[in-house]
């Protein structure tokens, strides 16, 4: 199994897609709940697996293009088939996933194996009939949106008009129509005329969930810009600019690096933005640009270790963040296979671990605690014992229920609320 690089529920939560470093997409489907086994409340089983992207070679630059899937985004469902967008560093693809449970039998010109029948042997005509067959799930690429990005794609986002979507790389954001693959509109371009002057890159971008003209993008300097596509074709001037003033007491050479935003997500309501930087998650009100509404510490005990984390490159890890369906809880990952949840109403938070060794299947997860110095209680783990190779970068929350998917390197964990 390969390292999982993205996780995403579809709009109903019936399907869960994962992409991995090897360019594969695996889709899980939730079982229908059955009365016979009420405790098995809709578990997820593999529904479809396909190779989305292959490694490529850019001959002009003599560089490999990785097949790793950076993001998957589902389209809302209109008919029996499912559609999703998957992207690697350079190319976005639209995939159709459909079921086939019948096949035609009784052709005149060929027999059941597909071999052509001898025409002289055909004496009667018959009408082929559809007969049931074992369910087969097929994935077919319907569109390939290529050659539009010089830099590495970090985000894709489907617009609420369901006709367009955007793809963002380090310096540019492009707007696509689903039907047109040979051109896209460039809506944001922050590439300086002189690359020597480059000091800031785009790290994530997302469309507003309801307003098809608005989108946000975050930067490596810890800023978020809200843009309105009605204002001009090229949205280089933002409509709103969100930035928290720097805390002078916490200033260090690493301040900029840890302020770099690794993920940005609109709330389902469309009223708030959630951002993740290296040590915190922040909730911003769209109506207040000068500072976030709420700030939650994910793993502040790492603040004194920033030099080591810089040395081993962990400081550049890009953690994602998610809202729950009602926007009342936010979740993000950390190291040592820990992930954290923050309840915005009660202000309580919990640290949980995604690990086979430390919890049995179907057992309630035990809250974990990191001890920061002094005496370590039993069951606590000290900061220096944390395993920094076990990082939870990708998580997803079911759109309406309390079911979460957590990717821990090459394992996928699915947790749900305990049934009483």
């Amino acid at each position, binding site marked *: 199994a390969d390292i999982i690089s993205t996780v995403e529920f579809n709009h109903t939560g019936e399907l869960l897609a994962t992409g991995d470093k090897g360019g594969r997409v695996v889709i899980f489907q939730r079982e229908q709940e059955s009365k016979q086994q009420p405790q098995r409340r809709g578990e997820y089983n593999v529904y479809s697996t396909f190779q989305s992207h292959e490694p490529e070679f850019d001959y002009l*630059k*003599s*560089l*490999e293009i*990785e097949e790793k899937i950076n993001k998957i985004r589902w389209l809302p469902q209109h008919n029996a088939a499912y559609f999703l967008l998957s992207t690697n560093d350079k190319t976005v693809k639209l995939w159709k996933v459909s079921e086939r449970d019948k096949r035609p039998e009784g052709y005149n010109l060929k027999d059941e194996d597909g071999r052509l029948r001898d025409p002289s042997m055909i004496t009667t005509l018959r009408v082929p009939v559809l007969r049931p067959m074992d369910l087969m799930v097929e994935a077919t690429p319907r569109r390939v949106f290529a050659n539009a990005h010089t*830099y*590495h794609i970090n985000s894709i986002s489907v617009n609420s008009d369901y006709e367009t979507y955007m793809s963002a790389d*380090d*310096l540019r954001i492009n707007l696509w129509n689903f039907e047109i693959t040979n051109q896209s509109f460039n809506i944001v371009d922050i590439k300086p005329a002189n*690359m*020597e002057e*480059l*000091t*800031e*890159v785009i*790290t994530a971008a997302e469309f507003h969930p309801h307003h098809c003209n608005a989108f946000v993008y975050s930067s*490596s300097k810890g800023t978020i810009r809200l843009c309105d596509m009605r204002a001009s074709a090229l949205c280089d001037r933002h409509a709103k600019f969100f930035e928290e003033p720097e805390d002078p007491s916490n200033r260090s*050479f*690493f301040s*900029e*690096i840890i302020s*770099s935003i690794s993920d940005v997500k609109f709330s389902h309501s469309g009223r708030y933005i959630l951002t993740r930087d290296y040590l915190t998650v922040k909730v911003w009100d769209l109506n207040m640009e000068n500072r976030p509404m709420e700030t939650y510490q994910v793993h502040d005990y790492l603040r*004194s*270790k920033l*030099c*080591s984390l*810089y*040395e*081993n*490159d*962990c400081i*550049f*890890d890009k953690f994602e963040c998610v809202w729950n369906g009602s926007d009342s809880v936010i979740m993000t990952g950390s190291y040592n296979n820990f992930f954290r949840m923050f309840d915005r109403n009660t202000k309580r938070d919990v640290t949980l671990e995604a690990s086979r060794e430390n919890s049995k299947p179907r057992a309630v997860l035990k809250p974990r605690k990191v001890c*920061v*110095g002094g005496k370590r209680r039993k069951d606590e783990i000290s*900061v*220096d*014992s*944390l*395993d*920094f*190779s076990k*990082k939870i970068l990708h998580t997803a929350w079911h759109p309406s229920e309390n079911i979460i998917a957590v990717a821990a390197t090459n394992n996928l964990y699915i947790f749900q609320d305990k049934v009483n």
Partner: protein
Amino acid sequence: MFVRGLKRKCFDGEEDIEGTLAGIKAIPSYNLQRQSLLDMSLVKLQLCHMLVEPNLCRSVLIANTVRQIQEEMTQDGTWQMINTQSTGQTSLDRLVSTDILCRSSREQAEGKQVPGYSSFNKDFEDDQTQDSSETMSTSSSVQAPRNLQSNVWEMENPQESRGNFQKSLDQIFETLENKSPNSVEDLFSEVDNSYYDLDTMLTGMMSNTKMGHCDGLETFSSPTTATSNSNCKSDLNELDHIVEILVES
């Protein structure tokens, strides 16, 4: 002033430095830390992957950090002072201080001795092949932007040093933009041929480095063996040591 033991508990003052690191000038610890960070950042920028394009965000962040340090050092006036010390010994100390820098915060939190450091330092001092250490340190100062050397001659001119520094950063960005298989060779082209073994070792190390691979913060306690570079002579094992610590392979 108390005579302190050799236990390297905290890196918190000049007396510790003088007691534990023989031969180093009593540089204030902040400057030392800052210089180590600068060296580390420069190495990170220059040791780029060859087959896959390096991450632009990471490169930009590291470059910004380097610029920040350089600006502060220019303001302080320490930029010129550091550059007059172009001996191999000082560069060696800078490498050592990277270790201190990254241990110090941890040890301050726990207040205990880390055994790995003393073994590392012992290897350094016991080794007869000072040549190899100097080889590494000289090449690392070559790998650093050329302004370090040029500043020896241009001490009066901080503006120009900034310009040279900027040029080196620009070069790095150009390299990032127009990646070609030869770019590593270009970056190392100033390195004397006698350092070829270092070159192969470094590139060999980078190909073995996994992205995001972290052994936890216990990176120095057990020196791992270097890559399967059979050409490494025994006197280059110390180089492996140093480079591993910088590159975290």
